[in-house]
């Protein structure tokens, strides 16, 4: 590589070659996999079929989240007698939407009343569905839950760093176009100078240069600079128009040095990863619509609400759960069945005396739960659309709020709107937000967010904050497996222990996603059914 290109850029030839090699290698591998059909495969095989007569076998299910209700629905359809014990007075678990008029009391006693206008909501937990989460999508279809696109990538949303670019938010469009353009120019010129002669044939080099020019917005001199070629990617300083003011003005790309040291490229990964690729979906009216639909699909009175499980025992003949009936002053009651599918979070189950073997008990105790905080903010007007032309999508920042997500619904109609004004995931800030009062979380989300959108200061109306370690029914957000813990405990967690088996996002390889709750439940009831028929 020519020294003038390497100077000050921080790029070494070795790094560039590694990047290209990795990209070409994975692309080639993917092509082969696709042609063989492997890459299309999903763990979800469509509605399960539990053939054979369970002869009135009963199953007690603990927890009316998506895992518990999936298990209940499928077992009921297969002829089992099912009952669910649920701590909350609603179904859904972490599948949950907070709407105007709702009240929410967190651990520690702070109660918030959601003051959002009609139709506006916050999804405190899951909020988006990847297109490849076939299980969630199939249940939505079967249960009549209407979906709409969730905008993950909006080129006109912002990437922001408190330090980079003097704290001025940059459009995702320009960061991506300028990063891609600058790196394409480097690689194209390095290729032209013969830097890749040892690795790439002359013929392929010409194609590579053609590709880099096409995809990077390079001009005929292989330069990425202000002009019509780059403007088609990064947009214009003044957009093309009509009449006498029609002539567009090309913008000046950011310097590669500024892009690299400003660190805004870190945010781009959120649009590239498999789990965030388009198309993503959300239920119309809030994620909680899925849990509500599941509950409606179950036979009446399947779910006993306000039931706090305090013990789980088993013998050769069946299982017995002891619970407090919270609606009846905590009266102690028992529920019995032939089998138990326990879909309680491990934070909860690990504290309940549970009659399982030492291996499963060790697994139950081995998984800490991730911290996460979300803050919903209602504004008097949709200034992000009216002033900044941001319709859906997410801005990423290194401020403690980490993200601002714009509603993927109700576009361009004026009126009020609710932003996701903070979404932390683990890390110090997540705990620090949790330790604050709900009102202070909202205040800080407004203060930090106003560094990106100054309109916050005048347009903010009301907010609500959910810190998952203070959520009374989970005491944490999601199972936070390490590779070491998984290697030691995962299979034991998922095994059938006598007459008890577990389900939930923690019993999966895609923790914290709804898909895993469903897949783990389907896997559990399929194995349970085999066991029952074999008995």
């Amino acid at each position, binding site marked *: 590589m020519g020294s003038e290109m390497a100077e000050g850029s921080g790029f070494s030839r070795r790094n560039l070659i590694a990047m290209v090699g990795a990209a070409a290698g994975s692309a080639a591998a993917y092509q082969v996999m696709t042609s063989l059909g492997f890459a299309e495969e999903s763990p979800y095989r469509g509605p399960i079929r539990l053939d054979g007569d369970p002869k009135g076998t009963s199953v007690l299910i603990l927890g009316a989240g998506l895992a518990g209700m999936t298990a209940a629905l499928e077992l009921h359809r297969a002829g089992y007698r099912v009952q669910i014990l649920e701590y909350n007075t609603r179904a859904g678990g972490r599948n949950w939407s907070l709407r105007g008029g709702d009240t929410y009391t967190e*651990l520690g006693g702070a109660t918030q009343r959601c003051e959002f206008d009609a139709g506006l909501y916050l999804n405190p937990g899951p909020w988006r569905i990847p297109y490849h989460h076939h299980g969630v999508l199939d249940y939505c279809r079967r249960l009549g839950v209407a979906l709409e696109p969730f905008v993950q990538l909006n080129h006109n949303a912002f990437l922001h760093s*408190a330090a980079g670019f003097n704290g001025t938010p940059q459009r995702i469009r320009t960061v991506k176009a300028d990063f891609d353009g600058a790196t394409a120019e480097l690689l194209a010129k390095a290729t032209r100078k013969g830097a890749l002669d040892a690795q790439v044939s002359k013929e392929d080099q010409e194609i590579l240069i053609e590709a880099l020019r096409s995809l990077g917005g390079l001009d005929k001199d292989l330069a990425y600079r202000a002009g019509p070629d780059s403007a088609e990617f990064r947009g214009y300083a003044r957009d093309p128009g009509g009449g006498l003011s029609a002539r567009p003005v090309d913008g000046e790309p950011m310097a590669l040095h500024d892009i690299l040291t400003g660190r805004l490229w870190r945010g781009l990964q959120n649009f590239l990863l498999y789990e965030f690729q388009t198309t993503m979906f959300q239920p119309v009216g809030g994620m909680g619509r899925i849990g509500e639909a599941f509950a409606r699909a179950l036979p009446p009175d399947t779910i006993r609400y306000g039931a706090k499980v305090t013990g789980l025992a088993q013998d050769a003949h069946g299982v017995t759960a002891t619970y407090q009936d919270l609606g009846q002053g905590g009266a102690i009651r028992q529920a019995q069945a032939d089998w138990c599918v326990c879909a309680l979070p491990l934070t909860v189950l*690990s504290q309940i005396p549970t009659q399982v073997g030492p291996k499963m008990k060790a697994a139950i*105790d081995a998984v800490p739960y991730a911290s996460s905080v979300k803050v919903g903010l209602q504004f008097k007007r949709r200034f992000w659309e009216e002033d900044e032309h941001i319709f859906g999508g997410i801005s990423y920042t290194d401020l403690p709020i980490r993200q601002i997500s714009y509603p993927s619904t109700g576009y361009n109609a004026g009126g009020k709107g609710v932003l996701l004004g903070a979404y932390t995931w683990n890390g*110090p800030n997540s705990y620090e*937000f949790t330790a604050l009062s709900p009102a202070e979380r909202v205040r*800080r989300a407004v203060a930090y967010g106003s560094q990106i959108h100054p309109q916050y200061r005048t347009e903010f109306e009301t907010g609500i904050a959910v810190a998952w370690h203070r959520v009374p029914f989970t005491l944490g957000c999601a199972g936070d497996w390490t590779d070491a813990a998984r290697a030691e405990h995962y299979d034991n967690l998922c095994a059938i222990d006598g007459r008890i088996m577990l389900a939930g996002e923690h019993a999966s390889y895609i923790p914290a996603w709804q898909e895993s709750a469903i897949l783990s439940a389907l896997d559990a009831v399929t194995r349970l059914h085999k066991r029952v028929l074999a008995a």
Partner: protein
Amino acid sequence: MNMSSIARTAAVLLATGVAAAAQEPATSAALPSAGPPMSEGQGFTESGGAALYAQVCAACHQAGGEGATGAAAYPALLHNEKLASAGYPVTVLLYGQRGMPPLGRMMSDTQVAEVVNYVRTQFGNRYGDAVAPEDVKAARP
């Protein structure tokens, strides 16, 4: 979000944390209250047991150490005899305990010692044998 992407994100943040830390803490510029600033990067930046407790531990164990109870409970630290042995809270912080994450891994040895010494001398606890940072270092995974 799955674990691999969390790990990747964490790695990216770690790799760039030094540059961020060298900057003036711009994040505190627009704070609306006199409340304490929040950490930057992947480690807690609070100093002293009281601040660490208030801004980290209180998230679950509550401001007065009273704990909280829902479907399960966060144990109270008030008059907690399990704190009699200093090694116990050090181990819990460094290795986690059931649902509790190993938060000590986002703290320095000094911070872990400070917050352990704090809870062992607050909330009605009177355990005078202070933990030193070297003790924490020796106990780390």
